């Protein structure tokens, strides 16, 4: 089963279930990139509140997804990481997660909106004087 991606305004929202196969993580990456490319959204918030394991594979796919979204012109934010998961990732080594983060979904949405606005929006509009 694919992880559902919701759209709220110009932001895509997705919440990862507690247990996720490698294929589901990969499908999520493809689905999110397709939606952003199609002009449906400028950014993506991935909520991992429910995830009790983020291993090196998942960390790599999430970080790569964020990089892909960024070089396409968008913003991706990881939200809601559990303390035990953060601790484990730090112990595993430097740079396991290389992307924007937020405490929770609300903070993630706000961060996407702010980062997109700071660049002048999707089409880099010139501000009206």
């Amino acid at each position, binding site marked *: 089963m694919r992880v559902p991606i919701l759209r709220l305004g110009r932001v895509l929202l997705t919440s990862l279930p507690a*247990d996720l196969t490698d*294929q589901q993580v990969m499908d999520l990456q493809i689905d999110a990139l397709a939606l952003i490319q199609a002009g449906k959204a400028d950014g993506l918030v991935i909520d991992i509140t429910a995830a*009790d394991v983020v*291993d*090196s594979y998942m960390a790599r796919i999430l970080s790569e997804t964020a990089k892909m979204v960024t070089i396409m012109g968008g913003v991706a934010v990881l939200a809601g990481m*559990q303390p035990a998961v953060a601790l*484990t990732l730090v*112990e*595993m*080594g430097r740079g396991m997660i290389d992307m924007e983060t937020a405490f929770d979904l609300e903070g993630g949405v706000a961060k996407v909106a702010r980062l997109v606005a700071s660049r002048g929006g999707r089409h880099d509009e010139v501000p009206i004087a």
Partner: protein
Amino acid sequence: MTKSRSPDRSASEPAVGTETHAVVEIRVQNDILLARQASRKAAAALGFGTVDQTRLATIVSELTRNALTYAGGGACRVLTRLTAQERCIVIEVEDQGPGIADVTGALARGYSTGGGVGLGLAAVHKLMDDMTIETRPGRTLVRTGMTRRR
């Protein structure tokens, strides 16, 4: 040829009093999740805290994925030992794959390679108290343990 490496305290053979808590055959991706759940359950039953449960579930994920990716599958055993002084969980992941050509390299490479076998094994080494690797073409056994005082 058998290569073995024990960076810290050696976990050579399972000690007396070791119980097999669960055995999960690794054949498809979903089996990684089952092995993860089994290890977390065993850790919780032994009174390990949330952080240790997370460490264990994470290394089980790394090791079983390696077995699936590089050997097409294998088996994951969750062993527990309870003594008057200590609680111990040992994870054994065995496969019949081609073996690890360069164990020291696989452990040393770390995250900088951006993936591959080194990343997972290096993570296991960091999260657990001890680890031994026996590998040759046709059989690889990774045994790693976590010990806490009672």
